[in-house]
């Protein structure tokens, strides 16, 4: 699948896969595809940063390779590793067979057969469908040395394995980095990327997203859900619900056959949107009713 030629085409293609995005996000995605630059997405948890990589992979029909970052992630788990147990077995087998040719054995032990490819190396492999999409998720969770390592990997798209040689990507992968901003990512890395802050969608867009993801939810209910969740986001709570939570909640309500939001239903299912006890305690009481009343008023006037 070739890269869409205009911003509108990007928006359309993404919408086909169920990812409804704004013009702003479509613009940066288009630029990132067109200029071949990594795309750095920041934003609150649950606004759809990871989702965009999946949607892109789907609509461009490319392979999605995901590197989930965590503290202590190092090059060996991100790029490649030698399969040590398999190498040991190969040595033992050769010994048991007797008369092993040491040179040939050595050659064989450090061949591609014993190489475990990790996401970064996989992303540099040629693919008949075209360059894969490399999702480096939650970059803010790694430590700074790994970030520095990425700098090199992202600018050259090549990896040197001493025993094999340099492997260079025939076509650089489409890279998407995401961060929840629990810590500041270094400017040097950001400078190599196009940046976009993914915000919570506005009312109409969120209704659209919910409709695309859960078509079974009735229009009135979905409007009520979105108005309530958006009202919740303006409250002073510890963790504001993201789009993912909205969709989860809609699924819950669907499973319970709810047709109209009521304070009782909300307090029963609050765990689907609020993930902190303090928040639930705060909203669970009379607050939920007040927000719901406001939300219903908003739906009616709209």
């Amino acid at each position: 699948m070739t890269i869409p030629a205009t911003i509108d085409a990007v928006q359309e293609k993404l919408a086909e896969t169920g990812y409804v995005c704004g013009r702003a996000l479509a613009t940066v995605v288009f630029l990132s595809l067109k200029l071949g630059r990594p795309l750095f997405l920041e934003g609150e948890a649950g606004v759809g940063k990871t989702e965009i990589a999946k949607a892109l992979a789907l609509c461009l029909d490319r392979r999605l390779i995901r590197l989930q970052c965590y503290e202590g992630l190092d090059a060996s788990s991100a790029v490649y590793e030698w399969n040590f147990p398999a190498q040991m077995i190969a040595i033992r087998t050769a010994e048991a067979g007797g008369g092993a040719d040491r040179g040939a054995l050595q050659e064989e032990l450090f061949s591609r057969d014993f190489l475990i490819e990790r996401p970064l190396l996989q992303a540099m492999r040629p693919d008949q469908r075209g360059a894969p999409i490399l999702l480096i998720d939650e970059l803010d969770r790694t430590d700074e040395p790994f970030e520095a390592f990425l700098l090199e990997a992202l600018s050259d798209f090549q990896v040197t394995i001493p025993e094999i040689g340099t492997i260079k990507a025939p076509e650089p992968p489409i890279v998407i980095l995401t961060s929840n901003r629990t810590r500041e990512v270094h400017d040097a890395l950001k400078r190599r990327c196009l940046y976009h802050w993914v915000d919570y969608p506005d009312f109409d867009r969120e209704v659209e997203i919910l409709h695309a993801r859960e078509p079974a939810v009735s229009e009135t209910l979905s409007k009520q859900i979105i108005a309530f969740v958006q009202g919740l986001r303006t409250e002073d709570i510890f963790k504001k619900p993201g789009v993912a939570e909205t969709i989860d909640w809609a699924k819950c309500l669907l499973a319970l056959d709810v047709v109209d939001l009521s304070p009782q239903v909300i307090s029963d299912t609050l765990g689907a949107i609020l993930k902190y006890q303090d928040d639930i305690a705060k909203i669970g009481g009379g607050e939920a009713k007040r927000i719901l009343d406001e939300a219903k008023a908003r739906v009616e006037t709209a």
Partner: protein
Amino acid sequence: MPEYVPLEMPETPRLAQNIIHFARALRRAGLPVGPGRVIEAVRAVEAAGFTDRMDFYWTLHACFVNRPEHRVVFAQVFRLYWRDPRFLEHMMSLMLPAIRGVQEEKRAAAAEKRAAQALLGDQMPDLPQPEDSEGGTQIEIDASMTMSAEEKLRSLDFEQMSTEEIAQAKRMLARLTLPVKPILSRRRMAAPLLGHRLDRQKTLRAAMRQGGEIRALARAKQRPRWPNLVVLCDISGSMSQYSRMVLHFLHAVANEKGAGWAKVHAFTFGTRLTNISRHLATRDVDAALKAAGAEAQDWEGGTRIGQCLHAFNRDWSRRVMGQGAVVLLITDGLDRDDANALEKEMERLHLSARRLIWLNPLLRWDGFAPRATGIRAMLPHVDSFRAGHSIASLEDLAQAISRPDDAGEKARLMALL
């Protein structure tokens, strides 16, 4: 590899130039924009094409912004730079504060002032002309700043500064630090040198392992530790201009890495006490002060020092002053409440602080005498009493803060009580 079309735009030869100037405006507004980004922006604009103003906006946004707090600044600079019909109005709004005095500044939206100053800080050769400029209003700003001007600014009262001077002063304040001497903690660390105190426990422990024979005397010295800084800043009406500058200064102190303070806690008070420590950690000074301002809802109201100190002593004192914090109290001490209660709270504050330094802008007047009841109640309970009305006085503070015996003007004023 992506293929770039050669950078040729014969039909709009000024676009690239305009983007360059736009980038320079952004840089002046505080965004870290390097030449590499500019080249990329030109390429990106070329790739995206010109269909609609919002595309253009987001294209440049993707290239120039890489921090969420920069989005506002970018939006403002963009709005001003790319032919906003209300361009002239904004130019005028920049000029107004200088004419009408500093009180007007608060009206400008976040980052708008910075955007305007970035654009108009000096004359821009290719600034797009406003469409409705036939009136011929000519605005010239001379932003040349010489060393001697900086010297002059140093001793100028914050309240007498013009907008431009305030901007310059803020830049100077941002460079100031409060260097502090480490305090010696009760924890000890091994010290190989002779002359440190003998560590008897460690010597004996070592001896036990050696079958009771003492082979060497272990010595230890106290481990140095940095103190915390707690700032209580008065933001009532009479203090507004000073507290604004002091908060700028505090932002610099709180964000200076390795300057010595273990932690900086800041509180504002007027009619009620507000903890703004969290906001000071925001990198962008304007965003930080805006957040602090939104949190503290008593800007430029009255003052109830006694009650606010009571709230501090009750709710925060034990949490933030546990490890020998230095307290900086910034207020003019003009309080109409019960003086006895105020004195009691001051005493309490003084007893729990390692050092209590009072910065009072009123001290700039030569004939200042502690006549107000609030000041009379507070003065006996501070370690040091200093002026805080200009850059020079804050610089003095920076030097005095590491002198343990510094009392500022306290002795002189105590004699007047």
